[in-house]
Every structure is written in structure tokens, then in C-alpha cells.
């Protein structure tokens, strides 16, 4: 194995880790409205000349007075970002009352990319087969965690699955897929997601992504606290490579993703550069690869 391969793999690993840990992008709409308001104000202030300076002085004086008057309270500076609470989403209460019902319900807005064909399995502890032909066990969801050591598996309803994009190695598109715990309690993921390409009618294109087993990044149990995300990287041969392999390349309508252990898929439609990963080989000649879900 060449040094370059190693560097590429490390780079992908670092990128995936950062993506999973970096938190979500802030919503643009609200920011744009704030920006427009500020852009207007900044023009107005310039017209008002030196008034801004006077205002700043006054604000400084007030701040000083507040500090003086605040008595023995300590000054607290929070050094790292607050969890992004900007997405308004109904969260189940995590109070000390009776635990929420065990049935898995799809929280509105929780998985924004869920396609219309998504059905949520409510059967407890059934073993079913996912798109990959891998046996997957659905464990009844327990939304609240007792303080015990084993963290329950993440129920599908508690995961928001979203695509990221990155350029990947030469000849491939890398598509990191984030699995974010939107629930109120910690949950865990283990193993590989099921990933396949589907047409607008929902028919599968080519073969599902192959699971890549490497000694350096084996599957591990990934514990996700509320708001934390795990990440699995999908690598898709680009169109040139698909054609080299003798494929007929088809542009898929979506990428269907099963979280590890889940039987309810979501459909992802990456936009921007990530949309390149929708072009897929219609035969088994150039399949994509997918790694295990890793902690960010």
C-alpha cells in the first residue's frame, strides 16, 4: 500500500470525524434576515456620523457599572459552542415520569430527508433483512436511558440522517453520511449502513454499496449523546471510472440509506457537489463502498 493511499485514508477519516463532531450548519434564512436588518442599520449609522462612537462609550460605561454592581457573582465564559438548538423540533420530555411508549413514532421534522415511502417498523425484536441482505435486528426503542452502562441502540425515529459532501480520492466521490441522535438520551450505533441507489419509481439501480472491512477502521459501537452524530463514508466511483469498468451510468433519483440495525430507510438526495454521487453504475461492475459508522 502506497503512502498516498494511507494519507488519503487518513484525510477521509479526519474529514469524517470533523464533520460528525462539528455540529450542524446554522439555518441561513434567519441569518439572512438578521443580515439585511444590520446592513440597513449600518448605512443609517454612517449617516448619523459620530453618534455610534458616543453610543459605544455609553455602552462601555453601563457595562462597567453592571460589573461593579454585580457583587460576588463570578464571570463565566463558555469556551465551546452551545449545542445547536436552532432547529425547532418537538423533543420528547425527558422528565422523571413514566418512560415514553415503546412504539416507534416518526417525529415530524425529525428526519427531514425521509421519503414518502418510509414505513416505520413497530414490531419489537424482529429479525429482518435489509437491502444488503444483512440480517438486522430491530430492538424495541427505549427513549430514556437509565444511567446504566449499556446504551440502547438508536431507533430510526431518533436519527436524522443527512449527506455531507467532499471531494474524496481521485476517481471517487466521497459522501459522508451523518447519523445524528435527535433524541433526548444517548443511544448507540454499530455496524454498516445499507446504501443503495434508486430511481424515481423506487427501483434499485445496480448493486448496493459493498461493506469495506479494514483492520485500521473496524466497526465499533458508537455511543451518541443527544445531538451527537456518527458518520459512515460512502465512496462512489466517478462517471469516468464507471465507464472504464464498462458501466452504463444512470443518474439515480435518490440514495436509500438504512441506519445500522434499522429496517426503515430514508432517501437522501444530496445537492451541490454531493449530487455527483447520484450517478451510479447500472450493473455490478463498479459498485460503491461503504465503511462502518464511526464516532466523529
Amino acid at each position, binding site marked *: 500500500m502506497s503512502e498516498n493511499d494511507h494519507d488519503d485514508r487518513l484525510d477521509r477519516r479526519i474529514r469524517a*470525524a470533523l464533520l460528525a463532531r462539528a455540529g450542524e450548519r446554522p439555518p441561513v434564512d434567519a441569518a439572512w434576515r438578521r443580515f439585511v436588518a444590520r446592513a440597513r442599520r449600518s448605512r443609517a449609522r454612517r449617516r448619523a456620523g459620530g453618534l455610534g462612537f458616543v453610543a459605544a462609550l455609553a455602552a462601555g460605561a453601563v457595562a462597567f457599572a453592571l460589573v461593579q454592581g454585580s457583587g460576588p457573582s463570578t464571570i463565566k465564559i*463558555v469556551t465551546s459552542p452551545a449545542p445547536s438548538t436552532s432547529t425547532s423540533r418537538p423533543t420528547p420530555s425527558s422528565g422523571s415520569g413514566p418512560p415514553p411508549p415503546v412504539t416507534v413514532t416518526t417525529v415530524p421534522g425529525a428526519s427531514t430527508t425521509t421519503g414518502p415511502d418510509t414505513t416505520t417498523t413497530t414490531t419489537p425484536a424482529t429479525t429482518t433483512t435489509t437491502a444488503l441482505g444483512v440480517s438486522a435486528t430491530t430492538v424495541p426503542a427505549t427513549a430514556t436511558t437509565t444511567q446504566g452502562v449499556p446504551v440502547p441502540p438508536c431507533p430510526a425515529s431518533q436519527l436524522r440522517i443527512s449527506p455531507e459532501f467532499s471531494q474524496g480520492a481521485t476517481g471517487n466521490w466521497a459522501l459522508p453520511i451523518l447519523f445524528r441522535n435527535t433524541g433526548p438520551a444517548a443511544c448507540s450505533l454499530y455496524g454498516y449502513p445499507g446504501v443503495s441507489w434508486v430511481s424515481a419509481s423506487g427501483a434499485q439501480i445496480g448493486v448496493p454499496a459493498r461493506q469495506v472491512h479494514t483492520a485500521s477502521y473496524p466497526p465499533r459501537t458508537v455511543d451518541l449523546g443527544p445531538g451527537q452524530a456518527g458518520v459512515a463514508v460512502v465512496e462512489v466511483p466517478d462517471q469516468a471510472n464507471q465507464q472504464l469498468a464498462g458501466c452504463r451510468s444512470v443518474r439515480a433519483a435518490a440514495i436509500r440509506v438504512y441506519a445500522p440495525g434499522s429496517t426503515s430507510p430514508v432517501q437522501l438526495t444530496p445537492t451541490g457537489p454531493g449530487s455527483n454521487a447520484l450517478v451510479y453504475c447500472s450493473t455490478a461492475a463498479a459498485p460503491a463502498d461503504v465503511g462502518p459508522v464511526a464516532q466523529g
Partner: protein
Amino acid sequence: MAGRPAPELEGLFTQAYAGLVRALTVACGDREMAEDAVMDAFVQAHRHWDRISSYENPAVWVRRAAINRLSNRRRGLGRRLRFLSRASGQRPEVVPGPSGGGVATLLAGLPVQQRVAVALFYLEDLPVAEVAAAMGVSESTVKTHLRRAREHLAAALEVSGQ
């Protein structure tokens, strides 16, 4: 002319704002500070849009401005802290943020310049040349930052066993 931003500026904002905030949040460890810096940079861009819109890639200018704001603010923050602690006769208490085990842990120990390079290169997926332009340093400096950061991160990811 009520100061309504130009459509091109709106396009740039929509395309660049969120990603830049996320990257700078990782670089400085404070979401609010990053948001302020990026917002300030865009307000500045709006003010000088006649000039900046003629640049080949206005996004480069905005990134550069936001990073400048951020480093000025970090220096300012240190001064303000010292001032406040003198004024109140208290030592400022630094409270670790709530995202333990997150990106802060991974990047702990990296100098700020390396964090900025890492955030722009890995999170924003910018080529080295654009990272260099955003940071106002040479490409070889960026490569050095990235090489050192890579060594650190390789070890950190190895240790965490993930």
C-alpha cells in the same frame, strides 16, 4: 437605495454563510463568536460591494475578512477578560462548554492557526490555495499547518480508538 443587498451578495451569503460559520466555530470553539465574525464580514462586504463584487471570487474576500475579525476579537476578548476581572476583583471562571467529547476534544492542543487551516481544508473542503488566501499566508505555510495537524489528529483518532 435603502441599503438592500445586491442579489449577487444574497447568492454569496446563501452559499457561504452557514459553512463558514461552522468552520470558524470549529476553529475558535465558540459558535456565537464565529457567527458574529462572519456576519460582520458580510456587512463589511455589503458596504464595499461596488468594489468587492468586481473581484474574481468575492468569497475569498469574505473568508479573509471573517478570519481577521475573529482574530481581532480573540485578542480583544483576552483584554476584556482581564479588564472585567480587575473591575470586579474576581478571577474569570472558564467553564468548559457542553459539547464534551466533540470537536473541541479532538482539536485540543492545536494552535489556532492550525485549527483554522484544518477547518477550512477539511470541513469547508477548500483547496490549499484558497485556504492560504483566506488566511493571508502562503500555500507552503498552510501545508505545514496541515501536516502538523494531521500528525496530531492521527494520534488523537488512534487514541480514542475510533
